[in-house]
């Protein structure tokens, strides 16, 4: 594996600070990410939680260096991997990081696989391209990997085409492909959203096992607060392109500090009890070409007052030091106190 210049093994595994991404379209500039901050340690699972359009996938694409450019541009901020700012690397160096250090799996496994090649060929290709392996050695590695992601009868299934696999098995193949070169960071963007719950449970279990074995950092992007409660160590809640709250999983569920987090938790029905009427968050998330002044959540917020409607937007307040918690709300003390 090529060595990246400037790598500091003691620096945080991944650290995103003040990230800004915008899309320059014919309708105007959409500010998709407006200052996102988070970090990830080895062996840790960070969940990025938020509703559709809040910027989860764009954040992941910016980290991977696969933003759709144009129209998308990173305009500000840093993405540091072991101390190296990925945004300052050449495209060639970036590609190497992408293959060897940071990998990603997507929601839609079927469209990510090529229908005209066998699963084994596509997996083997990774080893031929990046490790210079022979055809037969690469196929052998492909079988081992399929076995590791618990595809039954891997030796015979390796010659199947993607359409011969079920949705859950295709997602396993994607995981195998992402893990082929032993990355230290895995970003999983809604990896189970398209799957049935029993299959989701299998896949989440598999991801947790692989992460433990490899001491990998996992960024799990999802909108499912059940999945997050089950697997995350820490959570970053995103709203309109910002991380509005960041906290360890137990703290955020028992004492949310941001009104949006709190409202989300109150609006989901529960499996384990017959609830009362659901409380709702009124209105809709903002259009990104026209984000409200001040706090972007203010038109929907039950706590909002005049200060919230004025620029600048709430800064990243430190909610507590031990554990480390932050919230972008002027009135977090009131919210968490209740």
């Amino acid at each position, binding site marked *: 594996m090529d060595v990246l210049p400037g790598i500091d093994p003691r620096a945080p595994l991944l650290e995103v600070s003040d990230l800004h991404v915008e899309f320059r379209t014919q309708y105007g500039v959409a500010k998709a990410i407006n200052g996102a901050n988070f970090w990830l340690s080895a062996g840790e699972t960070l969940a990025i939680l938020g509703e559709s359009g809040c910027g989860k996938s764009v954040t992941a694409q910016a980290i991977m260096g696969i933003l759709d450019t144009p129209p998308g541009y990173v305009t500000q901020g840093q993405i540091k991997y072991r101390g190296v700012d990925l945004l300052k690397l050449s495209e060639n160096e970036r590609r190497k990081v992408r293959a060897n250090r940071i990998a990603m799996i997507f929601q839609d496994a079927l469209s990510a696989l090529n229908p005209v090649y066998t699963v084994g060929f596509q997996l083997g290709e990774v080893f031929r391209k990046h490790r210079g392996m022979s055809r037969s050695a690469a196929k052998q590695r492909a079988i081992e990997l399929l076995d590791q992601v618990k595809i039954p009868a891997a030796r015979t299934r390796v010659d199947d085409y993607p359409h011969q696999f079920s949705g859950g098995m295709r997602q396993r193949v994607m995981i195998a492909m992402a893990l082929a070169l032993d990355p230290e960071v895995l970003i999983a963007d809604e990896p189970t959203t398209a799957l049935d*719950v029993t299959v989701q*449970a299998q896949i989440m279990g598999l991801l947790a096992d692989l992460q433990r074995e490899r001491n990998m950092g996992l960024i799990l992007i999802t909108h499912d607060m059940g999945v997050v*409660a089950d697997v995350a160590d820490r959570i970053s809640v995103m709203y309109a392109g910002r991380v509005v709250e960041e906290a360890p999983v137990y703290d955020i569920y028992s004492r949310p500090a941001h009104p949006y987090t709190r409202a989300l938790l109150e*609006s989901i029905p*529960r499996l384990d009890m017959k609830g009362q009427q659901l409380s709702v968050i009124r209105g809709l998330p903002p259009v990104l070409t026209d984000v409200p002044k001040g706090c972007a959540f203010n038109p929907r917020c039950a706590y909002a007052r005049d200060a919230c409607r004025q620029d600048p937007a709430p800064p990243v307040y430190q909610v507590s030091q031990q554990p480390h918690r932050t919230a972008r709300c002027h009135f977090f003390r009131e919210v968490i106190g209740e």
Partner: protein
Amino acid sequence: MSDVVLEAKGLVKHFPITQGIVFKSKVGAVRAVDGVDLHLRRGETLGVVGESGCGKSTLAKLLVGLETPTSGSINVRGEDMVRLKGAALRRARRNIQMVLQDPYTSLNPRMTVGDIIGEPFQIHPEVVPKNGRQRAVQDLLDTVGLNPDHINRYPHQFSGGQRQRIGIARALALKPEIIVCDEPVSALDVSIQAQVINLLERLQNEFGLSYIFIAHDLSVVRHISDRVAVMYLGKVIETGHDHAIYDQPTHPYTQALLSAVPVPDPRLRGHRDQIVLEGDVPSPANPPSGCRFRTRCWKATQLCAEQEPLLQVRERSPHPSACHYAEIRDVVHRR
């Protein structure tokens, strides 16, 4: 039981599998719905859950008459929908309407909202006289929480949640007693999902509606349903009040399904019974003999391969369960 508004008996839908292009010959059948009995009372919500491909949408289409059953009967208010014809059938159909999953594709993009919601009045002109239709559509918009002045807008000018409201308004147009909802909130974000669920509940109270509510999200179904039916490979395998299904499930499949659903409370992590199912759902064209779940069931015996378990109350199952060895096991709460 005079308050039963809908009753289906022995409902079957087989889709033929054919081979050949010019001379098609039938080589088998997808048994999408394979013998379903259900009933629905006035003002009640029956939830239907199950994994992808188990036959939920096919069941919904049979109930509203979008598919013709291979066999079985569907009674709406005492009239047999399968045998009714012509004007009588059209009149009876008014009583049972449908709301679909995808608010992005289920509305015609070239029609205004007014035309979409008012379309049922053209098919059933006797319901509202022509000169009253605009007013009726505006009332419907108001009922579902949309601005009546937006009657001339197009679907793309509305958000997902608002489009789902349009779909609901359209279903309400003919003042039905029964609405079949097929995954009505699955495509929506949680904050919007709660708005639509609350709307459905309010309308139910206001108009005394009965719902068949189909979804794969078991938490949403628990919230909205009075009773629940769990489907596997075209059959209902367990049914009962929400409390029976969620707190005292007796069928191994229901137990496995529920145990796989994450609960949004990290304190329960590792403290719930976990059942991880192996393998995939078998093909509905070739279901296993005896109990259809036996290929994935950890309790299966020889008996399960030989004898199909009927959906009935059993010694250890106070509510109907299609398992020879039905027995209560709580997989939802803290152990």
